[in-house]
């Protein structure tokens, strides 16, 4: 039986909740057009070059690539968090709000930008579990989000909402008064996700959210993200270098190399039928858990797929 016959029709292979025939085209939430970012210097570094991407509403888009390929820079560019010498040199990022209006993110600034961030696009940072303030309780830090972005909210409502958020991510409202050091790495990561979800954003950008966690906790967090996505309907840009992990949760995967997106495809197709040589090499660097692939380590035979470009 050929691989083609084996392959189901793309629209039929998913559950109805996920069914999405080219969803990202019909209902986009973020469109990125010809987006380029440079790091200015004596020799400017072109960190992101002419990226075109459309993120569908409620879609999980995986962004894969090695360190230094520009995947985090792209995320920072989308949220306009770039610090000099980082500079957006061309292109635009348009956010299509569910209320029906569009915002060009590259043009707004000041108050407008502050209102936009977190509220519409929230971000979970790399090593997020260490980005909590060690001298403030979890509750106080969650509360800060609301005092800043929802100044009219009453203290009692804020408290209730913070508790509810912690329940949602599986930490429990009774931990509101805990300090970060009293929580495990996985729980701190959940708190960070709760914080990102606080204002019901339409897009969540997660930059290596599970890299520092061990496999069992990582699995819990992934399940949590999948569940929360169904509950809230936000779209996710999931940045990591771990391709097998991306396959588990993403609808589509984009592979980045030296600032370019070299391949963008449905997760299933990208894994079973990679087109670009770099994607193939990246896939080859993960030994398979149950299959035969990867046996070459034990024999010590050098695989030329790994040598190329190094």
């Amino acid at each position, binding site marked *: 039986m050929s691989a083609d016959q084996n392959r189901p029709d793309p629209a039929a292979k998913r559950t109805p909740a996920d069914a999405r025939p080219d969803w990202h085209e019909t209902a986009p939430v973020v469109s990125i057009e010809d987006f380029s970012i440079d790091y200015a210097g004596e020799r400017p570094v072109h960190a992101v070059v002419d990226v075109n991407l459309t993120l569908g509403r409620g879609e999980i888009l995986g962004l894969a690539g090695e360190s230094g390929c520009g995947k985090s820079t792209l995320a920072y560019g989308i949220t306009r968090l770039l610090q000099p010498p980082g500079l957006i040199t061309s292109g635009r990022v348009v956010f299509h709000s569910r209320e029906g209006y569009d915002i060009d993110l590259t043009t707004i600034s000041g108050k407008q930008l502050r209102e936009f961030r977190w509220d519409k696009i929230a971000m979970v940072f790399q090593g997020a579990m260490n980005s909590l303030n060690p001298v403030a309780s979890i509750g106080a830090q969650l509360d800060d989000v609301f005092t800043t972005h929802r100044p009219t909210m009453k203290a009692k409502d804020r408290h209730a909402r913070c508790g509810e958020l912690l329940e949602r991510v599986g930490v429990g409202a009774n931990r509101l008064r805990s300090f970060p050091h009293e929580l495990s790495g996985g729980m701190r990561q959940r708190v960070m996700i709760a914080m990102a979800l606080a204002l019901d954003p339409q897009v969540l950008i997660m930059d290596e959210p599970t890299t520092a966690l061990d496999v069992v906790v990582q699995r819990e967090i992934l399940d949590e993200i999948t569940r929360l996505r169904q509950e809230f309907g936000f779209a996710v840009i999931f940045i990591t270098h771990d391709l097998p992990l991306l*396959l588990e949760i993403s609808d589509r995967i984009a592979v980045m190399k030296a600032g370019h997106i070299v391949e963008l495809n449905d*997760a299933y197709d990208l894994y079973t039928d990679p087109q670009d040589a770099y994607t193939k090499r990246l896939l080859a660097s993960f*030994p398979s858990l149950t299959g035969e692939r*990867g046996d070459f380590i034990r024999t010590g035979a050098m*695989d030329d797929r*790994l040598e190329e470009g190094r």
Partner: protein
Amino acid sequence: MSTLSLSHVTKKYRLRNGIHSSVLIAVDDVSFDLVSGQTIALVGQSGSGKSTIAKMILQVEKPTSGVISLDDTPVIRRGAGLRRYRKDVQMVFQDPFASLNPYHTVEHHLDRPIRLHFPELSKAQRHQRVLDLLERVRMSPAEDFAPRHPHELSGGQRQRVAIARALAPEPKILIADEPVSMLDVSIRLGVLNLLAELQRQENLGVLYITHDLATARHFSDEIMVMHQGDIIEHGPADDVILHPQHDYTKLLANAAPNPERRLKQLAK
């Protein structure tokens, strides 16, 4: 042939909490043998006691009870005896950014262990050994790499220097604590390949500590699964991964990203 064996090794830590104290059993009655030429992977969640075992083997921690012996002689914990033991048992650390001293050159890092363990060598001979070591970890031209400082190397190159340093005293046993987890995905297999090749050349016994089941399966002959200080499963690599017996091993195997299984799910 050398054998490193742990018999009924237990490590307890006393946790103090105000005036109360409790005992944490980090490693509970663990016994296994590591023979030259063999690779054993030690897998488990963080906090399961993997690193405590490594520390005890390296004599950084003292077991509360039980005996660690090399070739049937219990390890001497001080003086010349300990130095001899350290010559035979070496370690590669997880983070190559932290394990090399930023002030010193690559040559210095490799020269030190040679000077300590082979005091009879002349300066020129030591230099030649440093170059040989660098060539063996595929860092050529070695003359070019020897005078460099760690910040002039990439993560993978640093880790290869760390491997060369561990090989400098010509050990029989190598403990590798997550040697590739800090490296970029595309060079991980390259470093593991190198370790496997060196292992065969030197007939080293390797204890590979990791939480990555996929590389553990392909890199090692046997796998030991640790859970809360206990070794709950120990067997040939393929058996442990493909036919896990213990519930916890099954949990670990299911938690690891597994594209093959996922593809089957999607295809349904």
